């Protein structure tokens, strides 16, 4: 696990920090994660700036699954890295991302390593087979993670705690002594999930957890993730797989060219009246069980975004108004969303 904290953190933190912000009154509980105007810029040699994420705003409530969808290169994985403090050195962030009281963007590496990664944010990685340490068995990785993140001490106790952790994600006990290359994609995924769950983090962050898996395994993985979301735990899943998103999401955020262009309930998005941003609509219509029509053109370069709406060049509804940046009003950032808003839409 990349979020494994340095060894000396173990003695300092026998228990994961209590899920501080989430044990308030059940009615209006504060969000697990509150992202406020998060922007990420990459500075390149020659003074070029890449606007990977611009002004992202969303909350993730306890017990909720928010799915962030968008095509590759739209900035969604950068957003995930920013939340874990895993951006490369040439990245500049602004805005805020509050995990309880802690701002993830300004917290230093020691804080992130010792109290956040694995303990307050569990990462379920893209391509779990590459994420696991190839030269060690799953059991030894489980035991190490248990020892680092919980108060369990002693060989026998660690062994049984690791087995319990494996069972929790449905990882078969008789595969614990295998190395990562001896596991199928689905089992490697379960091992990675089991590791992410060990710290009992209130927020799970899944970055493309289903890439490269076949449809049955995608469904299975997504259903298991859903099972781990309970009253206190929330899931932020990043994916380009709309079918997986439909299966798990409570709410859907659509990202295009570094900006969130639509944030709406999953029922509204996948059902009726459907998404309102022309880009979201285009993505859905591209599915093989819908019209299977691609959105014309290519997404813009993040290094040279237009001043106005970034989607205007590919949009059949574009007008002169689109040369100005559309504000995020209601659930959508568009000058002429479809269909006409009803009071119900505005509530979302």
């Amino acid at each position, binding site marked *: 696990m990349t979020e494994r904290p340095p060894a000396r953190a173990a003695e300092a933190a026998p228990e994961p920090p209590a899920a501080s912000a989430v044990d308030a009154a059940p009615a209006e509980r504060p969000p697990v994660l509150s992202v406020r105007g998060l922007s990420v810029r990459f500075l390149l040699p020659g003074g070029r700036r890449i606007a990977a994420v611009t002004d992202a705003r969303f909350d993730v409530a306890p017990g909720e699954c928010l799915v962030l969808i968008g095509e590759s290169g739209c900035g969604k994985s950068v957003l995930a890295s920013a939340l874990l403090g895993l951006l490369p050195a040439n990245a500049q962030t602004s805005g805020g991302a509050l995990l309880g009281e802690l701002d993830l963007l300004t917290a230093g590496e020691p804080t992130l390593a010792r109290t956040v990664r694995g303990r307050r944010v569990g990462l379920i990685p893209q391509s779990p087979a590459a994420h696991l340490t190839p030269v060690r068995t799953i059991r030894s990785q489980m035991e190490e993670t248990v020892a680092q993140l919980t108060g369990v001490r002693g060989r026998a106790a660690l062994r049984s705690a690791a087995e319990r952790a494996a069972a929790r994600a449905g990882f078969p006990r008789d595969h614990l002594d295998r190395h990562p290359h001896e596991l199928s994609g689905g089992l490697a995924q379960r091992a990675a999930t089991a590791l992410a769950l060990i710290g009992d983090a209130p927020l799970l962050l899944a970055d493309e957890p289903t890439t490269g898996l076949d*449809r049955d395994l995608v469904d299975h993985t997504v259903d298991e993730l859903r099972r781990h979301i309970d009253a206190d735990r929330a899931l932020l899943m990043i994916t380009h797989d709309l079918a997986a998103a439909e299966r798990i999401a409570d709410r859907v955020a659509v990202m295009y060219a570094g900006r969130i262009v639509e944030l709406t309930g999953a029922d509204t998005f996948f059902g009726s009246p459907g998404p309102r941003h022309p880009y979201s609509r285009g993505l859905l219509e591209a599915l093989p069980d819908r019209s299977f029509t691609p959105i014309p053109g290519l997404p813009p370069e993040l290094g040279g975004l237009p001043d106005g709406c970034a989607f205007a060049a590919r949009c059949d509804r574009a007008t002169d108004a689109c040369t100005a940046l559309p504000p995020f009003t209601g659930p959508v950032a568009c000058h002429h969303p479809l269909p006409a808003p009803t009071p119900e839409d505005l509530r979302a």
Partner: protein
Amino acid sequence: MLELRDVTAGYDRRAPVVRNATLTVAPGEAVGLLGPSGCGKSTLARVTALLHRPDSGHVVLDGAPVHRYRHRAPRAQRTAVGVVFQQPRLSADPRLRLTDLIAEPLRATGRRSSVPERVAELAGTVGLTPDLLTRRPHEVSDGQLQRACLARALVLRPRWLVCDEMTAMLDASTTAALVRAVEDYRTATGAGLLAVGHDRLLLNRWCDRTVHWDTVTPKRAPMPVRTPG
């Protein structure tokens, strides 16, 4: 016709990944091959693209049985099949600009003079803009790189196309765009297609007929099952 006759293939003769696979694609036909992860369908796709020598069985291309594979395959057969793989990053030379990536098969077969014209034409077909063509793979997204890989597969105007999980890494819109590019090419040239994948919905929508792995490799005597412990 593109025929696979009783093909057994794998990486260890004692434990072949594909056993006795038989499959036929007619000219102009699109066949989807559906199977779960790890069943051996990618290995069969490699055999079909003449990139992997089967342990036994035959590949017959337009009536001519294939005797040599990989770089030993005769050029006429090798260039009759275009192939697109699942992971564009692993199938693109990181040092080549996209335009050179697309032109590589032309240069390798001594058709250097047609490079500018064909590359420009194919860039349009797969939806790549001219500024992208001057970049190297690390400067483009997965979707854009896969578009270039499809253009490379089409550049020699193959009569057969093998798409091995071509869209598994891609978002819905890029998937639809690439499938459309393949279909436009097939409509124009009458090429046959073997599309390998695990997405039933996609293959049913894309192909004339979809066959399941189990029907391609008929079960023989059950293999002894080793139980753990």
